[in-house]
């Protein structure tokens, strides 16, 4: 009797462990954990300028990226960012939900998303601070963070939006295309835009990308927002993007033009673009150049700012990259850089990045 009980207990234990194994395997098949981190160094090389004069180390960020497949058609996606050695007790750094949304797949052509998302405009905004996903130390500033070049411009679009989105991938005549549409609260400063909208109308972002060949991808983005604040008025931005890969040579370029139309004052037409050629050597070394340009207003003179970047990206392992580049900032006589000798300055930037 004692023997039978022991046998039964052992059998139950084996069954339980098998069930746990199967459940655990299914659980881990449904969840993917990824992330990235970057450590940076910046030092201004010129005697005067906006950059860092002392040379600073920056524990730039650590992001955890989760993809959870709650069912066959439902995916939850989350990017939690811990930036600049965050320590809330001392009011240092930043914790942020970069995105957190739920996606329901009707088909590959119709995927609905709800939550907080990156605004799907152009190339760099959705890549955001994911340094393993691009060559340079920082994302292209002209379209994304243009105040890094010269002060006084406006953002072509807010970086995030809380709302409803539609994403799809399809094929036309054997050529791939994809699209995104986002209806969101839009930009605002008085309320949390991810909780409450203080505008009478919602913002709309749309983007379509098309691949005419395996080497070329082109895209068009548009952002529209109408603000309740008459001093801001209406913002309409259009963007074009192209990426051309020819063997080891890659060209990436974007152009954006935005019109900000306050109700009682004349509108401002702002233009920005960048061009980035790069060449990937077999040993993992990729030299790159990038020219970023921002024209604050097409109706004013001498208000153009540029950054010219010459850099090297080295792939240490398939997860780790080292980057080193010189940034040369330069501006017209009517820009915030006019006060510096030669109307510009040089800054060295370096980064060690890991993506997993």
């Amino acid at each position, binding site marked *: 009797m004692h023997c039978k009980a022991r046998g039964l207990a052992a059998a139950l234990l084996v069954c339980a462990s098998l069930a746990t194994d199967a459940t655990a395997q299914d659980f881990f*098949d449904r969840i*993917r954990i*990824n992330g990235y981190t970057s450590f940076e160094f910046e030092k201004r090389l010129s005697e005067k300028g906006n950059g860092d004069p002392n040379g600073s180390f920056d524990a730039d960020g650590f992001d955890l990226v989760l993809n959870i497949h709650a069912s*066959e058609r439902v995916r939850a*996606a989350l990017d939690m960012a811990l930036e600049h050695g965050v320590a809330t007790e001392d009011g240092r750094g930043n914790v942020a939900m970069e995105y957190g*949304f739920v996606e329901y797949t009707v088909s*590959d052509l119709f995927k609905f998303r709800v939550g907080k998302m990156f605004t799907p405009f152009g190339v760099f905004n959705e890549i*955001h601070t994911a340094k393993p*996903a691009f060559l340079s130390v920082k994302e292209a500033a002209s379209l994304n963070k243009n105040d890094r070049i010269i002060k006084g411009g406006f953002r072509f679009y807010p970086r995030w939006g809380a709302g409803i989105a539609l994403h799809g*991938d399809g094929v036309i005549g054997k050529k791939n295309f994809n699209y995104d549409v986002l209806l969101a609260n839009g930009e605002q400063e008085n309320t949390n835009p991810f909780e409450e909208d203080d505008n009478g109308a919602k913002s709309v972002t749309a983007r379509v990308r098309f691949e005419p060949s395996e080497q070329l991808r082109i895209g068009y983005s548009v952002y529209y927002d109408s603000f309740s604040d008459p001093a801001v008025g209406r913002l309409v931005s259009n963007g074009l993007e192209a990426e051309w890969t020819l063997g080891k040579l890659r060209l990436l370029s974007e152009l954006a033009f935005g019109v900000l139309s306050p109700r009682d004052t004349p509108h401002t037409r702002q233009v920005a673009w960048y061009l980035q050629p790069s060449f990937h050597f077999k040993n993992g070394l990729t030299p790159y150049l990038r020219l970023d340009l921002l024209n604050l207003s097409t109706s004013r003179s001498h208000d153009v700012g540029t950054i010219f970047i010459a850099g090297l990206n080295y792939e240490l392992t398939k997860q780790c990259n080292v980057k080193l580049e010189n940034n040369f900032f330069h501006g017209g006589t009517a820009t915030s850089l006019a006060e510096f000798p030669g109307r510009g300055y040089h800054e060295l930037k370096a980064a060690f990045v890991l993506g997993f």
Partner: protein
Amino acid sequence: MALVRGIPALVAVLAFSGAGFGADKAPYTVVVNTESKLSKISDDDLLRIYLGKKTLWEETGTRIQPALLEEEQQVAQAFLEGAVKKSVSQYRAYWKRLLFSGGGSAPRTFRTSAQVIDFVTRQPGAIGVVESSAADAARVKVLDVTN
């Protein structure tokens, strides 16, 4: 004279054996779960699956879960360059951009073909790329890849 006459025949035999023994045969095989109703897959669909553009088996409404061998392995490299039309570094860069911008996770990678087959056996929506010599028809279904 007989020797000269025999040369074209010898050339023909050699050419035939070259084709027969897989001069153009891919070193990899595409497999799916035995519950799958598929018997073949187009090379376009295969490419779209491994680039995250096709994520649902429309016939069954099952999520596609692609898997392959780790990129360092020659079979994986042959598959990426042949079927996905990207070098390993291009494929890796492509998925880093998609993953970190919220577009979904990259195909799972495994060290051995046996591990890929285990995964495909476990998940009804899975599709895997394994060494041709390792495709176990008793556990998974082998797909023909069509143009």
